[in-house]
């Protein structure tokens, strides 16, 4: 076991938590991520294998699902982002790769992203200052990839108006964090 100490996307040794009123923004560092893109002509095989591997149908466009160990987000045509707990699945890319050999292209994405959970009452009042989606129709299981202050992000609805997960580019975690906390102060 190596002895290199990780830091979070915001540069800390422990994840950062910010609270405005009853609403909390929590940095989530314990996420292992890998992208799975079906090989040409193997789209159905890929979907089938994914289902067997992870225990649910690969999500359709704009959607996400979660099982006990894994969650998946639709990224693009025949492409998904699979995530799992970092402590137990740091090798998620290798695992998926070995099982999808010749069926899908797998790429480690764990540290490409910074992840934040925004939770509390009136979360949508914060979101409407950040990105453009019809929140009237943003339901549990919806996952949208869009821009927050010029940063390409995934926003995943865990519970309407109460909890969303935001994944943004890791190198810009500070800018994204600033944008979200500023919007929290403004909106709440």
């Amino acid at each position: 076991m190596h002895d290199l100490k990780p830091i979070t996307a915001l540069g800390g040794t422990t994840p950062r938590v910010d609270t405005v009123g009853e609403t909390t923004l929590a940095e989530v560092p314990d996420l292992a991520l890998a992208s799975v893109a079906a090989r040409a002509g193997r789209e159905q095989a890929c979907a089938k294998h994914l289902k067997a591997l992870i225990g649910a149908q690969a999500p359709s466009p704009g959607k996400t699902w979660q099982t006990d160990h894994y969650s998946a987000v639709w990224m693009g045509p025949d492409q998904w982002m699979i995530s799992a707990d970092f402590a137990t699945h740091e090798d998620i890319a290798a695992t998926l790769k070995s099982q999808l050999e010749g069926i899908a292209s797998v790429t480690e994405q764990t540290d490409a992203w910074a992840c934040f959970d925004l939770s509390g009452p009136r979360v949508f009042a914060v979101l409407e200052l950040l990105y453009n989606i019809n929140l009237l129709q943003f339901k549990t299981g919806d996952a949208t990839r869009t821009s927050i202050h010029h940063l390409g992000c995934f926003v995943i609805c865990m519970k309407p108006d109460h909890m969303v997960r935001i994944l943004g580019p890791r190198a810009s975690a500070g800018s994204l964090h600033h944008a979200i906390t500023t919007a929290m102060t403004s909106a709440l």
Partner: protein
Amino acid sequence: MTQANRLSGGQIDHNTALEFTFDGKRYAGHPGDTLASALLANNVRLMGRSFKYHRPRGPLTAGSEEPNAIVELRSGARQEPNTRATTAELFDGLSATSQNRWPSLAFDAMAINDRFSNFLTAGFYYKTFMWPAAFWEKIYEPIIRKAAGLGSLSMQADPDEYDKGFRHCDLLIIGAGPAGLSAALTAGRAGKHVILADEDFRMGGRLNAETFAVADMAGADWATQTVAELSALSNVRLMPRTTVIGAFDHGICGAVERISDHLVTPPKGKPRQILWRIYAAQTLLCAGATERSIAFENNDRPGIMLAASMRAYANRWAATPAPRVAIFTNNDDGHRTACDLHAKGVKIAGVIDIRPDAPRSRDYEVLQGAHVTDTKGRLGLTFVDVRLADGTARTIECGALGVSGGWNPNVHLTCHQRGRPAWNDALAAFAPGGTLPPGMSVAGAANGAFSTHGALKSGADAARKALGLKGRAPALPRAEDAPVAQTPFWYVEGCARAWLDQQNDVTVKDVKLSYQEGFRSVEHLKRYTTLGMATDQGKTSNMGGLAIMAELAGKSIPEVGTTIFRPPYTPTSIGVLAGRMRGKEFHPTRLTPSHYWAEERGAVFVEVGNWLRAQWFPLPGETHWRQSVDREVTATRASVGVCDCTTLGKIDVQGTDAATFLNKVYCNGFAKLAVGKTRYGLMLREDGIAMDDGTAARLAEDQFVVTTTTANAARAYQHMEFVRQCLMPDADVQLISTTEAWAQYAVAGPNSRHLLQKIVDSDYDISNEGFPFMACGNITICSGLRARLFRISFSGELAFEIAVPARYGDALMRRLMAEGEEFDVTPYGTEALGVMRIEKGHAAGNELNGTTTALNLGMGRMVSKAKDSIGSKLSERPGLNEADTLMQVGLRPVNTSDKITAGGHLMRAAGPVDAAHDQGYVTSAAFSPTLGCMIGLGFLKDGGNRHGETLRLVSPVTDLSVAVEVVSAHFVDPEGARVRA
């Protein structure tokens, strides 16, 4: 502090006093007041000066179309020029200052212009100020500029914050007057998602300004009750203080919500304003109508205002501009003002009605068939001259004159997609035309339904239609339903200095002159006279000008045309359009994995795109950046240095056709690259010009990791997606960026292998034999951490690039520094990186400048003829392959103490120095500690054949002219022995 002109009633809180100042003088008003209503209540009519003649002015209107009563609000960094006193919501402690006057509002020296107005007619400046030629810029223009302009900027950064947001709805209703409220009730009760936006701080529109009953209660009370019902509906969002500024494509409206403008300062962390982008499936415009004026001689004195505005001041704000007022009208609406003011106890000096059959009144005198011919009063109206029906003259003493020339529907937003309003004969006005923005409908007075009943009905009907609601229409509240009777009447016969555009001082006479000189189209009239170009965007002036032009041309108004309205509906602060994207937050910042460590080391950072990179790492005692950079270069070349190169774009290319794909996007070949090997690749645009370069490392038969330059990462990736999706859709290739996933460090210098051997796990052989130059592979380090190792070199030294998951990047850098102590390891920044790549002759952004070909870069032979690749065909064009084409060369000063400047041009050693004799230019330059002098890279005509030639490097803009020798671009280790060591 007495409010001499304050009346009773209205929608203000008489029991609470708010103190404010205007031009330093203290006044009191009440909650619910605007600055203008409070000043009028305090018997202040003079609030501003006009643009050109500096004529004294008071409010013409009671709304956002105000051209005259504009002031500087607040002071210090929050000073806000050109604020309409008629919409500025009064708050305790408000301070306002008049503008465009010197030394004071009452005595303005620039009013001398008014005396010379006969010389300052429309367009006079195009005809003079030309002699002598130099005088325009030195004498005339500075004087004109100084006199021009309205309010002043504070010259300090705006201290307030602004937000931007997005909202979606089924129906956006613009305007909360009777039509808008009625529409909102209809849609809200049907359960639709409704946004109701109104620019006013109090919803209700004209209901607040009139005495009409709705549903047997005061109209204002009905509005209050309706707003209460709407606010209880969770599907309805009420947005008062929100101006819809523009209707853009596909149902997107821009709206500005004023969050804190009615407060002394915004609460901490809260914005001053928010720009909402509202995505509405349907939009219903209920923006009401604007009263229009009548032009007569000297119709611009303080105290002369639109009659319905005078009525609004009395009914809503309990203020009258003067204790004794008169009315000038061509329609019944003017009489309403007289009635309402009379009822409030204001003395009506007379109603002057152009109609011989105007209705009479028991309460005041009506002068039928009469016209206002002139007015008096220097700083405020004192007398009105009237020509009676029988031709006799009469003078009426009054402090204010309400003028009513009928109403114009507020069609502005219907024009924002270049639709034109249509002339409506019945209204004698322009009404929304047939070409509305898709998804928009119009109701109420904005659509010509001028009565209260008409507005309520059309609002409800339009909402039902827009939303496709079925079933019986619900009953409407009872309300007045007076028929519309508008007879066009634009100006009083014989007037000349009669104002059309009050702010810009455009008079009837100017329009006539414009016609006389051939400026007869609406666009020419507007541009020649500046009519309609004031801050009210012509809301109060365009119609009068059009009507006079039509009369002169012997055409109807619609034949002359109309100018269309452009966004924004009312002037919009630039701050809110920018939102949070300012200061350090202008663009997001990207930090490298070693950023926090570099900060601890005291690194100096530089912006590279959105990245912050360490530029150099000063040590104690180093006072000049060159000391640090020279040391970093020397130490790296002598032993080992480490540089964070995470910022290079990294794209994972996988699939059975990955090699075929790279063969297409790179001009050189990749099909035969062995697994475990890396190759330099040059990417061309289809036009044959170099777009980007980098390396592709083949980690598996079907997997490459491609790097791009930091600057071009996004564009190169986009280009690859274009090739993949549009040109090779059947190919089995998948792309994904991994730039941020991996912390990647260059470890360079003769001891780089020794250093790495201390951390690379012993399972992996990185000796020269086991891991030769251009090798690559997956490895583990520090007892099991997955990593990637590439043996590539940008510095020209024995070098590696090592990558680990980004979260371990910080720890890896610290480990490299600790393990490297025995080698005196040196972190180096982008400057040293740049020096070393110039010493090695590697092209970078300055050379890949979007105009250079592979041939220019000395890589002409890399463009494979054996295969088709993007750009290969068009790179063969003759203009890109001329005999004396630019070729990359190295340059060194003949006198080693001389400077070389990037951007300098190359001339022959002897001969003229001018553009016609240009031989090329210097792209990059640096001091080379290795060579002990400055060196440069450049492009030189036929450069490949001119090594050894002496040239003159000239840079007149930096005052440099030195002799340079053309040399090979590879200053250091041209044979490449070191990289292979």
